[in-house]
């Protein structure tokens, strides 16, 4: 198996596969109501909704960088603003996350092993470094989400 396909498999399993180290991100986000997602059970910490949009925003940045756009920050902000907190908007937020994941996987699948060693557009690190960081980013926030869920009696 090539290095790239191993890395893409990791990105997939961490998002919605058999993540092994803990729940996948989708598993961690499953079954939450909009009210729960918008709640702030730990004062000073982000809500699950904010974390979901933050992950989506960064997946978008990484996808754009893979496509050669030297973008540094998400256009919508590091933690995009949430204007409405109804169930429909929560569904849209989850769809945005799915879309960003697909965009990232799509851009990554256009690469090959040698591209992993090349520098990211506008950055001083390699594509491999960025994609490894992308995997860790999702794992980190899925860990937070699964703990925040305990406030609602969900494991």
């Amino acid at each position, binding site marked *: 198996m090539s*290095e790239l396909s191993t890395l893409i498999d*990791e990105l997939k399993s*961490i998002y919605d596969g058999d*993540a*092994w*180290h*803990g729940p996948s991100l989708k598993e961690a986000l499953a079954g939450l109501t909009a009210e729960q997602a918008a709640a702030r059970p*730990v*004062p*000073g*910490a982000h809500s699950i909704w904010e974390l979901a949009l933050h992950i989506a925003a960064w997946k978008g940045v990484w996808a754009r960088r893979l496509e050669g756009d030297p973008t540094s920050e998400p256009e919508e902000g590091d933690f995009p603003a949430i204007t409405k907190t109804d169930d429909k908007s929560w569904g849209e937020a989850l769809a945005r996350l799915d879309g960003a994941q697909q965009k990232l996987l799509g851009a990554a699948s256009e690469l090959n092993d040698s591209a992993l060693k090349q520098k990211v557009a506008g950055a001083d690190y390699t594509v491999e470094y960025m994609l*490894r*960081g992308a*995997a*860790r980013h999702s*794992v*980190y*926030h*899925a*860990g*937070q989400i*699964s*703990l*925040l869920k305990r406030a609602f009696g969900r494991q």
Partner: protein
Amino acid sequence: MKDYLTDFFRFNDWANRLVLEKVSEMRDPAEAVRLFSHLIDSQDKWMARIDREESADERPWFGPSYALEELSARWGRSLAAWIDFLQKLPEERLGERVHYTATDGKPYWSLLIDIALQLNYHSIHHRAQVSLLLRKQGIEPPFIDYVGYTRR
């Protein structure tokens, strides 16, 4: 890949130790200590399976929590075993199977490379939770992004 995995373990060591320092400031560190103990137990259990220790499969994932004062040394020993193992391992052996019996009593196997990867993601997963527990008790978690590790 061996170098990547060794670096991943070292990054987690750096980040976990920064978080552990903050855990000692918590007024109620019980849950954070339980999660750290679990990280140590998990690393040790997988190493015992690799070493074909007879009772490896009976080792608990969540054993009784260690004392807070013991965590740093226990974590260090657990990590050193993994770093030492990886350093001595020829690269091509990363694709070898490790056989074990899971908690459902059934036999399974996993690749060494996948075990090493999942242990490190597992560390990130629970470290994020400990950071959140710190914040819950009014303590600002340390900056533990990988970029911080590379800038040391």
